[in-house]
């Protein structure tokens, strides 16, 4: 919990630091600024996440030290033992035995320490990844709908799944190999300096070349990995779009075109991948080449020193083997560096998502709307989705508790938008929406939405049982309540006919149900909660009218004393409304009752009569 709060605070601080950009709301500039900060800040943030497990990291470090020390010690023991095997008849069996016993212990300890270390590293990595993934998902729930509506879902999914996965791989490699690598380097360095400082110095001078080469390549690679990652995102979103709507693709025989589009992106991906893979894989040979230079220079300098008698042949051979041991981790580290680059590119994309501006925070004194009496007012509301396209202008509405409001008008006149504003899925640009006389921005979103029951045109069900779906708004509902709601929504009979009744599992996107059945379930979902205000957006468009009439009756009972907003095209729905709002181009052009509006002979009458135009 504490970490989460810290992270939230960080996000808020970051926003506070660039208030100008945030105020302008210009996503572009903000993103650019963020990108500049990204590279170094990404590392810092990853470290902050790892910091939560610092004790484990410490244990892992200690184990790494133990492992490395033991690994370096074992060859010395072997060497000592070999020194006791001199010639036939000159073998110190007792000495060898005691050394070998010691070696057995050392090896056992090394094995155990190594396993434990690996295990702990796994733990740390996956925990960190889990934390980041959870954080990203948590953020998803507080992102404004404006973001979700305007970003391809495939791209967001790719960030939370594929990118984080990539990141975990890099991080794990980093942990397992970076630690031991660094400690091995330090350990061997120590041994070398003890034997001969001059040659050790030669080694130290040459090896940085390896690092320079590695970091140069890594820099190049990072760009490619980022591009690869982006192209993968593009590909994922195409796949998401096309697979989700495969029926349309097939109906239009569009398979070939889609395939071509896919192959085009895939081809670009091939280019980036090839470069990313190649660049990252040349690090190893390059650093290995530098290593052989180190080996050669140690050989030459050491041999020349031996010629002058500064060094024994035995010492030279120890030196050579240590030089090898010393440079090997550099290989690994350079491999790890590229993997880490890759991971950072992915992490950056995840953090980009986490950094998306969340919903406007609720004021500290936000009121908790208790059961609303149901008066709703829209006061000089201006709103549009895009700055350049005006939509709702100077919208005024005054709804008394318990009234039934039908919103009608040609398509695209702003009916769904009104709902977005009522539910506060979007905030008004200016003006105010009031419930019970209070500005909705002064109350908690939770309490506001709890007062609305909503059935949308788009029927979304979650994968799970039918029971879970009906009880979505009230998870602790009893069996009877669920069944009663289903009966009221006329869903009971078809549910009973399902293979497992209420326990039938609905597949992803409700694939095994018809559109109408899905709609009935959505209605049952609302029936169960019975909030004081209702929003029905063409809620019954896929239900046959006979069933609808029954539902209407149930609704009518339900709506008694409840304010309800109905976006509907059906005459039957509209006729019974207390007030009809006739909308056109974001304005209310007429409002009144069915009879009054017809008598007025205006736009509504025109709409109504056109239903019977000869066809």
């Amino acid at each position, binding site marked *: 919990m504490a970490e989460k709060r810290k992270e939230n605070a960080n996000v808020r601080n970051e926003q506070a630091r660039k208030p100008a950009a945030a105020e302008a709301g210009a996503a572009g500039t903000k993103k650019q600024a963020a990108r500049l900060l990204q590279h170094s800040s990404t590392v810092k943030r990853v470290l902050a996440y790892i910091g939560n497990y610092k004790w484990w990291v410490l244990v892992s470090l200690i184990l790494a030290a133990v492992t490395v020390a033991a690994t370096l010690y074992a060859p010395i023991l072997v060497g000592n*033992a070999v020194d006791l095997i001199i010639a036939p008849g000159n073998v110190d069996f007792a000495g060898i035995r005691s050394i070998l016993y010691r070696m057995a212990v050392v090896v056992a300890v090394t094995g155990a320490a190594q396993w434990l270390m690996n*295990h702990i590293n796994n733990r740390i990595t996956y925990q960190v990844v889990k934390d980041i993934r959870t954080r990203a998902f948590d953020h998803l729930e507080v992102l404004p709908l404006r973001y979700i509506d305007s970003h391809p879902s495939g791209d967001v999914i790719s960030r939370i799944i594929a990118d984080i996965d990539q990141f975990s791989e890099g991080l794990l490699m980093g942990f397992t190999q970076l630690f031991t690598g660094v400690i091995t380097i330090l350990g061997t360095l120590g041994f070398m300096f003890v034997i001969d400082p001059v040659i050790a110095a030669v080694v130290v001078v040459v090896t940085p070349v390896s690092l320079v080469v590695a970091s140069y390549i890594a820099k190049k690679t990072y760009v490619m990995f980022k591009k690869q990652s982006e192209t993968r995102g593009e590909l994922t979103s195409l796949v998401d779009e096309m697979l989700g709507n495969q029926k349309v693709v*097939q109906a239009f025989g569009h398979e070939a075109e889609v395939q071509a589009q896919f192959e085009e992106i895939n081809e670009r991906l091939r280019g980036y991948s090839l470069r990313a893979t190649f660049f990252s894989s040349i690090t190893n040979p390059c650093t290995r080449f530098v290593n052989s230079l180190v080996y050669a220079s140690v050989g030459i300098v050491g041999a020349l020193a031996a010629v002058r008698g500064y060094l024994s042949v035995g010492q030279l051979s120890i030196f050579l083997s240590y030089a090898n041991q010393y440079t090997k981790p550099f290989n690994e580290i350079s491999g790890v560096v590229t993997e880490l680059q890759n991971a950072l590119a992915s992490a950056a994309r995840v953090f980009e998502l986490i950094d998306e501006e969340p919903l406007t925070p609720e004021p500290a004194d936000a009121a908790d709307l208790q059961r609303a009496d149901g008066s709703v007012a829209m006061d000089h509301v201006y709103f549009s989705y895009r700055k350049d396209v005006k939509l709702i202008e100077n919208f005024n509405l005054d709804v008394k508790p318990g009234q039934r409001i039908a919103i009608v008008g040609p398509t695209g006149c702003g009916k769904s938008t009104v709902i977005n504003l009522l539910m506060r899925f979007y905030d008004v640009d200016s003006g105010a929406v009031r419930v019970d006389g209070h500005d909705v921005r002064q109350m908690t979103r939770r309490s506001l939405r709890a007062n609305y029951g909503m059935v949308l045109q788009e029927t979304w069900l979650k994968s799970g049982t039918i029971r879970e779906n009906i009880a979505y708004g009230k998870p602790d509902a009893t069996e009877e309540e669920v069944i009663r709601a289903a009966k009221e929504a006329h869903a009971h009979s078809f549910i009973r006919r399902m293979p497992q009744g209420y326990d039938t599992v609905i597949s992803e996107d409700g694939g095994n149900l*018809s559109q109408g059945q899905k709609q009935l379930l959505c209605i049952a979902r609302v029936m169960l909660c019975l909030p004081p205000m209702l929003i029905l957006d063409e809620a019954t468009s896929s239900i046959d009218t006979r069933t609808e009439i029954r539902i209407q009756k149930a609704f009518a009972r339900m709506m008694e004393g409840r304010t309800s907003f109905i976006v509907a095209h059906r005459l039957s729905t509209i006729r019974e409304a207390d007030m009809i709002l006739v909308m056109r181009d974001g304005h209310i052009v007429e409002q009144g009752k069915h009879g009054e509006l017809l008598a007025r002979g205006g736009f509504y009458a025109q709409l109504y009569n056109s239903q019977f135009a000869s066809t």
Partner: protein
Amino acid sequence: MWKLLKYLKKYKLESILAPLLKMTEAAFDLLVPLVMAQIIDVGIHNRDSGQILKMGGVLVLLGLLGLAFSLTAQYFSAKAAVGFGTGVRNELFRHINSLSYREIDTIGTSTLITRITSDINQVQSGVNLVLRLFLRSPFIVFGAMVMAFTVNARAAMIFVVTIPLLSVVVFGVLLVSMPLYKKVQRQLDRVLLTTRENLLGARVVRAFNRQPDEITKFDEENDLLVRSQIFVGKVSALMNPATYIIINAATIVLVWTGAWQVDEGVITQGEVVALVNYMSQILVELVKLANLIITISKSLACANRISAVFDVEGSIVEKNHDRIGTKAAGAAAGDAAAVPKVEFAGMDFCYAGAKEASLNGISFAAMSGQTIGVIGGTGSGKSTLVNLIPRFYDATEGTVRVDGTDVKEYPVGQLREKIGVVPQKAVLFKGTLGENMRWGKPDATDEEIYEALDIAQAREFVDSKEQGLDLPIEQGGRNLSGGQRQRLTIARALVRRPEILILDDSASALDFATDAALRKAIRENTKNMTVFLVSQRATTIRNADRILVLDDGQLVGQGTHEELFETCEVYREICLSQLSEKEVRAHG
């Protein structure tokens, strides 16, 4: 699974050269100690600085050669692996496209997405690694054993025991961890599903204030994922310590028996050192091999998941690939005009796994140019019925004929070309408006498109946008309202001027004025088109030439509005639930 290997065929040369070059590089590595021995034995012994520098030069040269060989190898393997991945991805996408809706429903969209993205990526990096290392590491392992035999056959027996023991450990870990990685991947799918669901259902989740519960659920799924990852990690983590212990135990035995052999004068001290060195060389290579095997086991798990998709066969099989001359088919039955455009004969349909048939004994005929209204309650089978015409599903019993020929006899492409479908769910694709309109007819002119937009009542709103046909459309058409999307999907189907037009409850988001104008325009502009109007609204279908009334999968009535209103109980109920008696008769 091995079927996937065929995608490597195009890169045969690269796939063979990469490991060979890597092996050559390894051979250079093995030469280095020999050169060093020369320096010690000759250079230092004879105090010959020139020789030392010369041999040092040889070391540098070997390094350079190694660099050149390995760079080439890396390039070849990267090229082969990336090419392989690209090929598999293209083919998999093509294969998925060939599946029918039924299979996609069964497999699930989310998992298909993971398979085509991260699974293929994993296999791709596996291939890359294998190409680079699969010859090199065993080469050194067995090379060291061979060298040990040249030193002393008896001592080499220790190698003969050790190496199989190591293989058992390495392959044992592989066998145990592979199914576990599969489990991890499955759990990752679950996490993906939850993520996807929350994106698509953001409105509902928020409306019901279920964010905290969704977060809890995600936490649970995520937790399960982490736990299975840690578990599989625990198993894999055994590999390195186990091999380390085996090798060092072998070294201890080697030193101990070596001591006895030296004591007996069989081998020398130096040879013991050499044997120990070979053993440690094996260890170094094994560490690499172990990492390689972990990656391979992950890749194999992923490869299996990919193959599983390849193994799913599309249920719609094209029997005949040659186009059918419709006129000829019509002539055989006499006057072409007398052949029904669409005909259902004793058709039954049952969804996969469903207990009851969704449609039962449906028979009717629709003539060219007729408008057929299809009406009925929710779940009565209206959509299913029209979905059988373009062969999205196959009839379980009976036949569906178009132009007198069984739809199963047509090449699928030819059949669907005749038909324009407007699905219930109005979806547009990312791109421009024009691109979307050309879906059914890639070479449609702007005029043809505007004509279709006119009929679909979408002209006015398209004109109101400045960009016209260049209007950018976001994924799913999210930047348009439901009604606008619906009209555009209707226009999209009209652009190709289909012989049969299917409107599957496609006007539900339209207000009645637009709906009426739309029907009027369709009627006036599509003289020869056979139009199927699926709807809940009596007003939408009341003027159809023939109305099919469905109730619970049965065709309970067919005829005109007037006939049915008198004779069909179900139809009368539907009408009266929507209109007053006076309205029903208004134009009767």
